[in-house]
């Protein structure tokens, strides 16, 4: 039992007024099950923003699991969102690929509100392959932040979820094989190799898939085994063309099949430029119940309402559409603009499928509180029953 969770449960359990007729859990689950809910759920990926909101700096939470968990719960208690996203930074995911003595050079703090900067682990495809073949991720696991930070933080939040009688779901985030493949070598290098060295790239992807499938066993035991029910799959392959998707994206399908056997509520995060073909492929993944999507691909000159409608039609009858406002608008816009965009998203989406207010990517640390509140108000203003 965690002291920080104890404190928050003592403060909140039985003391929070209801919002609508459903719990936060029921609202998000209902939308993902394509059922009518009392309100459109609002579940932005707050990431670094919640750390800043709670009064911590990023440097401060980097080594302190309790403060990280405290920030997530405090933000939820104040704003009453329909989910709590685990806080995840890049070091939580891949520090175990790097020998302890070299970690400092790969992860760089640039400011109290700035994202953790990351430098790639392998420079060539051969280096990346060797790293996987020698199972570097296993050799360097001890003392790495997946063990020391990510896992304890996840367990604390899941403990909170369970002790609050599942009022609010915790969203656990897991990167897919294509995401890992791109991140470890830097996306632009990986993309080139798909064209110039396709066979070797496929071998590399297969190795990434193997590691990710093994990682899912960890999630089965420690996340699902402790009540984890909602899971976001952070997909890669965000700027691939149709033929790259056809040739290389199969690894993500295999991964998704296993993830959906572990978690009942899985959705897919596809930030950046979205090719409709990529969204179609995700839509057809069995068990994936929603897509957190982003802007249209280059060259698609669509207004946002047109894009919202196009995606809603694409997902209709199959998945929940998760979007709005854009992370750029949440950061640089005005509250009235945020409210308008959320409304446009809901209006364009609900004739075709269910909606969840969730910007396409993480809300930036610099986003004003008024804009986050405007996002929530716009969702809560949309009563569905």
């Amino acid at each position, binding site marked *: 039992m965690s002291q920080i969770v104890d404190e928050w449960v003592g403060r909140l359990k039985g003391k929070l007024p209801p919002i609508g007729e459903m719990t936060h859990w029921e609202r998000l689950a209902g939308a993902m099950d394509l059922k009518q809910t009392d309100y459109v759920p609002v579940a932005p990926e707050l990431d670094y923003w919640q750390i800043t909101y709670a009064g911590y700096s990023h440097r401060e939470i980097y080594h302190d699991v309790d403060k990280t968990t405290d920030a997530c719960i405090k933000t939820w208690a104040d704003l009453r969102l329909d989910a709590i996203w685990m806080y995840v930074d890049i070091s939580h995911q891949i520090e175990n690929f790097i020998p302890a003595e070299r970690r400092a050079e790969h992860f760089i703090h640039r400011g109290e509100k700035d994202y953790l900067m990351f430098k790639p682990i392998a420079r060539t495809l051969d280096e990346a392959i060797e790293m996987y073949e020698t199972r570097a991720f296993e050799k360097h696991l001890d003392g790495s932040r997946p063990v020391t930070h990510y896992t304890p933080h996840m367990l604390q939040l899941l403990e909170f979820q369970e002790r609050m009688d599942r009022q609010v779901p915790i969203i656990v985030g897991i990167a897919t094989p294509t995401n890992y493949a791109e991140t470890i070598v830097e996306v632009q290098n990986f993309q080139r190799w798909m064209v110039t060295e396709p066979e070797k790239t496929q071998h590399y992807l297969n190795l990434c898939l193997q590691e990710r499938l093994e990682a899912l066993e960890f999630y089965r035991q420690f996340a699902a085994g402790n009540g984890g029910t909602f899971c976001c799959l952070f997909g890669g392959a965000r700027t691939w063309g149709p033929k790259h998707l056809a040739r290389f994206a199969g690894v993500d399908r295999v991964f998704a099949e296993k993830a959906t056997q572990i978690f009942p509520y899985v959705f897919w995060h596809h930030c950046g*430029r979205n090719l409709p073909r990529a969204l179609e492929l995700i839509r057809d993944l069995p068990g994936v119940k929603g897509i957190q999507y982003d802007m249209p691909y*280059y*060259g698609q000159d669509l207004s946002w309402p047109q894009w919202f409608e196009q995606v809603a039609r694409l997902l209709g009858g199959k998945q929940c559409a998760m979007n709005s406002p854009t992370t750029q608008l949440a950061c640089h816009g005005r509250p009235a603009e945020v409210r308008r965009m959320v409304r446009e998203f809901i209006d364009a989406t609900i004739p075709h499928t269910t909606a969840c207010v969730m910007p396409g990517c993480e809300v930036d640390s610099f986003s004003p509180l008024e804009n986050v509140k405007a996002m929530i108000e716009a969702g809560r203003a949309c009563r569905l029953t």
Partner: protein
Amino acid sequence: MSESDILRQLSAAVEELDLSGVVPRVQAALDGGLAPAKVLTQGLSAGMREVGKKFNSGEMFMPEVLVACDVYFAGLAVVRPLLRADKDDHVLGTVIMGNIHGDVHTVGKQVAMPVFEASGLRVIDLGEDLTDEAFVEGIRKHHPQIVGLGTYMTSTFMHTKATVEAITKAGLRERVKIICGGPAVDAEAARRMGADDASDDAWKGVEKIRRLLGVE
């Protein structure tokens, strides 16, 4: 082979991602007496313009675009030393560009640089994760007309304000136009932070730079 056939082959090398064939083709064109500026503007750069059209129409995607950029640069490396003596290189202006403070992502810059070069701009890459002072020094040293601030993430885009202020404080703001580039930029927000424009697409970025330079 006629001159136009040779130029078409050079353009095709870029479009067809012929990484191993571009250098021999450029060399053969030069050995055959074609002016270096023509090899660049009507051969390699024409290929990059076609790549831009195909990218925007959905016939080509980012993986191919990145390789096309490599092909273009491989050819350019052969031509560039010869251009210095060539009076006919039609340079529109000089752009210094780099990733703003806290940003090390180079994917956008790797596309923007060849696209800008292919459009007649002289491009100087200052690097990644640059301090505001590095941009100020870059202006003093290279006398550009355009400063390109590259940002990949929303949070680093927010540093635009501080960089523009540093350029202004150094008394250099009136000398340059400032354009932000990257997937998370927004033109209105860029102007609010003191820049002149922003683009999330390299080819559209060229159009905006031309407007800023008054050469539409």
